[in-house]
């Protein structure tokens, strides 16, 4: 029983990592109706920037804010320069663009900062949380920040005009343009916000997994799975999805005999696919109605 609780707790703390990433992915999906493969790399690059700032003596929270601003602007810049020209191109071509972006960012990070792992500080400290040895204060802090971002996004999409405009631009662009929404800039804004959220995810994840150019690959896969499980239209779903994936994967590894340990990821993914077959829009996603 104790092992069970321990694994659940461990799963929740790992799940917080996935939830963080999933939020960024949902954000980009809300903006452009697609998943950006390079999201993880952008987050990693932002995290490196913040690390570099701290190496130069900038205190943590100052570096945090600077990185956030930098990521936001960089996200917009990348969209305007690289993806706006592809707006009329087929979707698959855009996906190829994401892959190209991934390759470029990963390679540059490797050249600038090399591949040795770097320690990344946490503002929350690493002592056991509330005396529990299974969740450190950092991981509790990470969960807290994720929930904060979630609330922020919820408020943004539900109660602000820009949020509404963005949702409209993504799902019904024709109609949105008719009411005067500049859909092109909404997309850019979406990219900027996704990049910013991604950078927070990166800065929260790095203390746990250690900073290096390939740190986001695994996280991206799980974040992807979590976002889809939770429903790509629902930030709330993304977070829940993240926790579910983390916990579930740990339980599979612990309790399924023999292959459970070696097939953690495939089984977790298989189960997500099963969920999707039953609920194609994810657990909390809104069902999509197609009109012919």
């Amino acid at each position, binding site marked *: 029983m*104790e*092992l069970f609780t*321990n*694994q659940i707790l*461990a*799963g929740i*703390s*790992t799940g917080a*990592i996935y939830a963080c990433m999933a939020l960024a992915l949902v954000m980009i999906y809300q903006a452009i109706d697609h998943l950006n493969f390079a999201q993880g790399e952008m987050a990693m690059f932002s995290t490196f920037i913040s690390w570099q700032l701290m190496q130069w003596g900038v205190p943590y929270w100052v570096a945090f804010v600077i990185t956030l601003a930098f990521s936001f602007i960089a996200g917009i810049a990348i969209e305007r320069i690289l993806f706006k020209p592809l707006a009329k191109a087929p979707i698959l071509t855009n996906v190829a663009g994401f892959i190209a972006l991934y390759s470029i960012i990963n*390679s540059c990070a*490797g050249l600038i900062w*090399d*591949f*040795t*792992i*770097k*320690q990344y500080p946490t503002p929350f400290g*690493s002592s*056991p949380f509330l005396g529990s*040895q*299974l969740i*450190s204060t950092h991981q509790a802090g990470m969960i807290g920040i994720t929930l904060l971002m979630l609330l922020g996004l919820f408020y943004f999409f539900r109660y602000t005009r820009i949020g509404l405009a963005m949702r409209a631009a993504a799902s019904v662009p024709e109609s949105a343009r008719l009411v005067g929404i500049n859909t092109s800039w909404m997309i850019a804004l979406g990219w900027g916000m996704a990049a910013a959220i991604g950078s927070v995810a990166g800065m929260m*994840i790095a203390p*746990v*997994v*250690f900073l*290096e*150019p*390939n*740190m986001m*690959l*695994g*996280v991206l*896969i*799980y974040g992807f799975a979590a976002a889809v499980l939770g429903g790509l239209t629902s930030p709330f779903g993304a977070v829940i999805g993240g926790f579910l994936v983390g916990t579930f*994967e*740990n339980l599979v*590894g*612990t309790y399924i005999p023999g292959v459970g*340990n*070696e097939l*953690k*990821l495939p089984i977790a993914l298989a189960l997500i696919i099963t969920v999707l077959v039953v609920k194609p829009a994810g657990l909390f996603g809104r069902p999509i109605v197609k009109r012919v």
Partner: protein
Amino acid sequence: MLLERLCTIVLAAVALAFASPPSFAQKKYDTGASNSEIKIGNIMPYSGPASAYGVIGKTEQAYFNKINAEGGINGRKIRFLSYDDAYSPPKAVEQARRLVESDEVLLLFNPLGTPSNTAIQKYLNGNKVPQLFVATGATKWNDPKDFPWTMGWQPSYQSEAHIYAKFLLKEKPDARIGVLYQNDDFGKDYLKGLRDALGPRSSMIAAEESYETSEPSIDGHIVKLKASGADVFISITTPKFAAQAIKKLAEIDWHPMHILSNVSASVGGVMGPAGFENSQGILSAAYAKDGADPQWDNDPGMKKFYAFLRQYYPDGNRLDGSVVYGYGAAQTMVQVLMQCGDDLTRANVMKQAASLKDFAPDTLLPGITINTSATDFAPIKQLQMMRFKGEKWQLFGDIISGAMSN
């Protein structure tokens, strides 16, 4: 009469000319070697999941640049051709064929990765091209009978595991061992070595947890191992995961005897990021000096290494074990080529590689030397155990030979 005399003299002179041996040795070359240069091929993962090891290739390139600047080997310059295989065996095959058939190199030096090397082994042996000092610790490279053109360099994973097993049997015979291992050839080879060396006592292994490199964090595995009641934790991990394990162990307040694979026993690459305070007491074994360890600052060999970095590879990170590795391997290659003299045939290269006697590159621990023979294709067999104390490793015990024959 005079004519006869003249004829005799001419005949005698001609006979003498043919009878006496030439005053200098014959120069013999295979493809890739000439009077002015020696072409060496290499395959490294410069991109992809294992790109962290690409620095080995860069270090070796820098080292060969140094050798060339100092006059080359017996007057010949080294041309080092290193290609990227992105850790993908089909790509490694393509690059190996390119090096042999298109670039016409003399030999392949230090190709990296067990899958890549396995993929090209048959081809290289079939074409009688030396596959020297492969950059992997898999035990199977020491097999001169079946693969006379392939030779390893670093101590094999199994031999290192043997050393740990023997240590445990002696120091902690009633241990309950929990093993965390990477689910690939590296992890599995170690595990096999461990099991084999424990022999009938292999039941000491209470729990085995494998992980994939695609997992972002191995925390769940650590929790499970702690729950198994193990009091010895053997970490067969690459640097990132080794650091994660050290950190998690501290966080959940679990303090077993912690044995760490040599691959990750880097002060700058693992212990530093994981936190020195968390790494106290960790055991490992080494065959080379650590560039982050101040105890070697005045060591003559390491001083040469640091000077080399300053002059030829300023971007090189001395804290990175891969850089130290590349230097040592390149030095060994140069030694072999020097020993070849003017006979730069592939067969002679292998012969010289199999005739290294007590050769000590600058970066190996004092007392550890390279020895090879026609039946022994494992250049480095010795390791010394060490314990992490303060901010550096403290060697203890004797230099142990983990010699294994295939």
